[in-house]
């Protein structure tokens, strides 16, 4: 049984649940109370503590889809496909959250809901690619064929992301660049709040991932039982 599954341990699941709960509560405190107002944008900027971690989780989960796809094609073990599927679903949700929070912030900060800026546009394209990934999965009945084709699409989609970014980058950019290589341009307390949020979101992502994987496994067991009865 162990060979077919990932992280199938209820102790780990509950540990992650409590850790992410503590992380999220601390993160909320840090984002709304601990971190100071921003000099020019005032209170509006605080959405940044939800926007940046959501975008991070989205990118992380699409990386997992990519790795899961490669590993599935190499090993043909179903658990890799389940991992990729679960991660893609969570990634699409967090990608949507990043787009929506970014848009809400953009209205007061840039005076517009949307601009065709590299990071925004790349995130939108990411959302489109992985929404297509999920649609593709629903359109194929046969299990191993679905896993193979989805793995190929997940790989191609991920390889495309840097090229999309580069292609849009040669347009004028208005996205605030918070991190550059030699300096970090935010106050230390803001950075601390951001790091807490990043850790909390990552833990929450892992928690959701494990839950989604075990849901998928239960579904498969149910299918197998139905087959045996019939």
């Amino acid at each position, binding site marked *: 049984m162990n060979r077919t599954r990932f992280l199938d341990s209820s102790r780990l699941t509950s540990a992650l649940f409590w850790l992410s709960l503590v992380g999220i509560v601390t993160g909320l405190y840090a984002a709304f109370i601990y971190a100071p107002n921003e000099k020019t944008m005032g209170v509006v900027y605080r959405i940044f503590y939800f926007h940046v971690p959501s975008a991070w989780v989205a990118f992380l989960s699409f990386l997992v889809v990519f790795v899961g796809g490669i590993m599935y094609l190499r090993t043909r073990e179903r658990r890799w496909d389940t991992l990729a599927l679960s991660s893609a679903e969570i990634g699409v949700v967090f990608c949507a959250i990043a787009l929506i929070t970014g848009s809400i912030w953009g209205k007061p900060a840039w005076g517009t809901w949307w601009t065709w800026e590299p990071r925004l546009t790349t995130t939108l394209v990411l959302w489109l690619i992985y929404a297509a990934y999920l649609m593709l999965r629903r359109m*194929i009945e046969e299990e191993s064929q679905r896993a*193979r084709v989805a793995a190929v699409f997940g790989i191609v989609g991920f390889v*495309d992301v840097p*090229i999309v970014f580069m292609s849009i980058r040669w347009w004028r950019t208005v996205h605030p660049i918070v991190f550059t290589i030699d300096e970090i341009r935010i106050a230390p307390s803001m950075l601390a709040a951001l790091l807490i949020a990043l850790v909390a979101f990552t833990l929450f992502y892992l928690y959701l991932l494990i839950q989604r994987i075990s849901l998928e496994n239960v579904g498969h067991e149910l299918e197998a039982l139905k087959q045996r009865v019939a």
Partner: protein
Amino acid sequence: MDGVKKALWIVWKDVVCELRTKETLSSMFVFALLAIVIFNFAFQLRGDERVGLIAPGVLWVAFTFAGVLGLNRSFIKEKDHGCLEGLMLCPVDRSAIYAGKALGNLAFMLLMEAIALPMFAVFFNLPVLMPSLLLVILLGTVGFAGVGTLFSAISVNTKAREVMLPILFFPVLIPIVIAAVKSTAQIFDGVSFDQSMPWINLMLAFDVIFLVVSFLSFEYVVEG
């Protein structure tokens, strides 16, 4: 060299099929023409006489949509008549099948573009016989046919095959669309070719990366 020869035989098969039915090329061409006409109305009725502004976009929308039409046919006709199984039984590498289908699709796309481009020149009153423009079209079309062939093979396995292809394909194609439209616009504006070089390089990079990725992953799509 043996693989190249086998791939060319598959191209030849597709060409013979097309010469006998003429269904793919004619529908692609008419569709491209329709797209040019419809977009011309859609934009010019806004009262803007500077057609040069919209021309690059119209050209690539027409090529993209007409190309998807052809790509859809590429594997559906194999699947519907059980030809895909036949191809799989042939003593050739899966990568030779990919190369053959991709080259065939590239040839059909280029032919369609060769017929549609003069029409475009007439409707928009723009010079199109420029080496730089032809290079841009070639690079864009190579990328299009390269990934498109892989995605055509993917979408033919799904329940709603014609619908799935553009949904899967267009998001991945975005870099090609951006680079092609931008460099086409620069060429029509008459700026020096040096300024288009980043876009040309981007298309080259896209073409190389995705030809390799598609070439390697095609066998997983068609197996079983």
